[in-house]
């Protein structure tokens, strides 16, 4: 998988377009496909409790806590996400729902329980902060596979190193990024973003990987932002795959009535 960086969320999605890359070598193709499935399509569904610690350049920290549920309509295809916020307290019980498509814009909803309001969110710039953290929405939900050109830069002992260059450089703040894909698990372990002056300024990396129900899974990851001097560490607990989540959970009904699965 190349368009996406490191698996921010073991459950996070990733755009897989049916199209293949005529320009890419078959080897790259295969790495992309395997990495995509390893990072984003483990099991048919999944759940994790996520804790984020956001640290600014002056060392002040803020915490975020949420439960994320994921359902795959089709392996490598459409996915749904249900994110139930627990902390900080001013967003407690707020729900973020995403219907992710591979051939059109995602649908996103936000449910504000105090107002009983189901708000529709415009899904445009995905490289904006997710909940004030250093992770972007795109780190959570994936970058379109056709948005970058990919090449196998080199092979190290344990990693394939891929270079990814955006096809539309104006739409993003980076000029390119490198991804290190683990040769054994095919998990993307590190992504390094270079700015317009080709200087690395942002690193997303997996800090810990564990085996969960036979799926190698990132349980701790970190984003470092050298421009602002801050970083965010995300930790994943209670990871479960194949819970048998019903697709109906990812509808308006369950915005108003959170499913049992999001409780502690």
């Amino acid at each position, binding site marked *: 998988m190349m368009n996406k960086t490191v698996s921010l969320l073991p459950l996070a999605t990733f755009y897989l377009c049916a199209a293949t890359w005529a320009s890419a070598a078959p080897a790259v193709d295969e790495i992309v496909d395997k990495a995509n499935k390893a990072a984003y399509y483990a099991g048919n569904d999944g759940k994790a409790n996520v804790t984020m610690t*956001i640290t*600014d350049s002056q060392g*002040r920290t*803020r*915490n975020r806590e949420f439960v994320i549920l994921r359902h795959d309509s089709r392996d490598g295809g459409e996915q749904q996400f249900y994110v139930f916020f627990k*902390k*900080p*307290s*001013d967003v*407690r019980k707020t729900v973020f729902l995403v*219907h992710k498509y591979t051939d059109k*814009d995602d*649908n996103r909803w936000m449910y504000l329980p*105090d*107002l*009983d*309001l*189901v708000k*529709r*969110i*415009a*899904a*445009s*710039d995905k*490289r*904006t*902060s997710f*909940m*004030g*953290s250093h992770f972007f929405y795109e780190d959570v939900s994936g970058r379109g596979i056709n948005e970058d050109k990919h090449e196998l830069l080199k092979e190290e002992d344990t990693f394939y190193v891929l270079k990814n260059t955006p096809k539309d450089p104006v739409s993003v703040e980076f000029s390119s990024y490198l991804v290190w894909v683990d040769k054994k698990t095919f998990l993307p372990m590190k992504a390094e973003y270079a700015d317009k002056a080709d200087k690395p300024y942002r690193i997303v990396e997996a800090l810990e990987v564990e085996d969960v129900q036979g799926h190698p899974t990132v349980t701790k990851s970190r984003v470092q932002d050298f421009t602002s001097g*801050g970083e965010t560490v995300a930790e994943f607990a209670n990871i479960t795959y194949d819970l048998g989540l019903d697709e*109906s959970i990812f*509808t*308006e*009904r369950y915005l*108003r*009535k959170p499913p049992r699965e999001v*409780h*502690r």
Partner: protein
Amino acid sequence: MKLGFARAVGLALAAAGLATGVARAELQTWKDGLYDAYAIDLGGFVEARNGWRLQNDPHEKDASIAEMRLQLEAGRDIGRGSLKLKGDLLGDFVTDDYTALLREGNFLFSPLAAMDMKLGRQVLTWGTGDLLFINDLFPKDWKSFFIGRDDEYLKAPSDAVKASYFHELANVDLVFVPFFNPSDHINGERLSYWNPVLGETAGQNYRMDEEERSSFGHDSEFALRLAKNYGGTEVALYHYTGFWKTPEGLNPAAMELIYPRLSVYGASGRGQLWGGIANIETGFYDSRQDQDGDDPMLRNSEWRFLAGFERELARDFTGSMQYYVEWMQDYEAYKESVTAGSPARDEFRHLFTLRLTKLLMNQNLIVSFFAYYSPSDQDCYLRPKVRYRIDDQWTIEAGGNFFYGSDDFTFFGQFEDNTNAYASLRWSF
């Protein structure tokens, strides 16, 4: 405002201060313990909020808002359902009242696999408008909205039964309100308004009596929604039978404001368009006690329509616009019935809204602006707001409610003397 601003803030800080530092950690431990032992999920906040009129209002106090508030929310799963209680303790130094208000007290459960029921006091919302409501005929608290309370308080709770049935063809929501729940409208208590009886702006000097609608069946409300999501395009049909939510009628014999009977038939659609979200909604308001429109004491029937569009304009910067219109039916009959000398309403009330929201400093600073502008009424209402999250507990907010109008009797123009600015400090837990 006997207790005053200084004391209000002092109380807020003292209360919140107690909970900071070591106490904060203890509170978290205690909350976790409460959950572990009794499965009770607790949260809430303490807030001080103060605001002032920016001009003199001959009928009202200078303080538009001065209050201390503690909100507590507790939830617990019981059997296959969940119980929720949410209430506020409010010290209101404008009205010199101390009150306990229950915002939510309800039980949510699924009697059938494809059915949910919510019984009790609850906040209800549907429809597609942004601070404009056509098919959402659930009660609003306009006082809270105009004096600068948190947005949460615009929605007043309903004492209702909500039944929802989920089916492939459509989802059906039925809300039954046994005893009419009116909106908390502007009646002079703390905001001055145009009083058509006096033919002038009034406030505390002239509070009118209101009809009470409290007989079961006779004064019950029903609201129905059929909704379906076609791959991201959400469409809905609505019906409401009940009453105008604000007193749109007058009983001249008793000099009493009344809530005339109302039925509404509506529809809405919402989906993605041009990289943003577009919404459209309409509703026919059938004013059942004045279907010919010739009773000058009751509001005529009308069509309402709105269309809106929202999109991200730049990173962390979102903009949206709406157009809204109220089209009075039987306008000729209305014109003929208006008392000579009284200002007559226009056949069409056009309204535009604009919302701009910018997130700064890792989304901890939120700068927002909302404006209503009516070219037909020649009035507007501006709501600028700045909010900063100091940390995960503390939030400060400042904003204003600015009313302008060429006439004293238009919807927003009548509130001109209530133009105010406010600030608040909140500690959430």
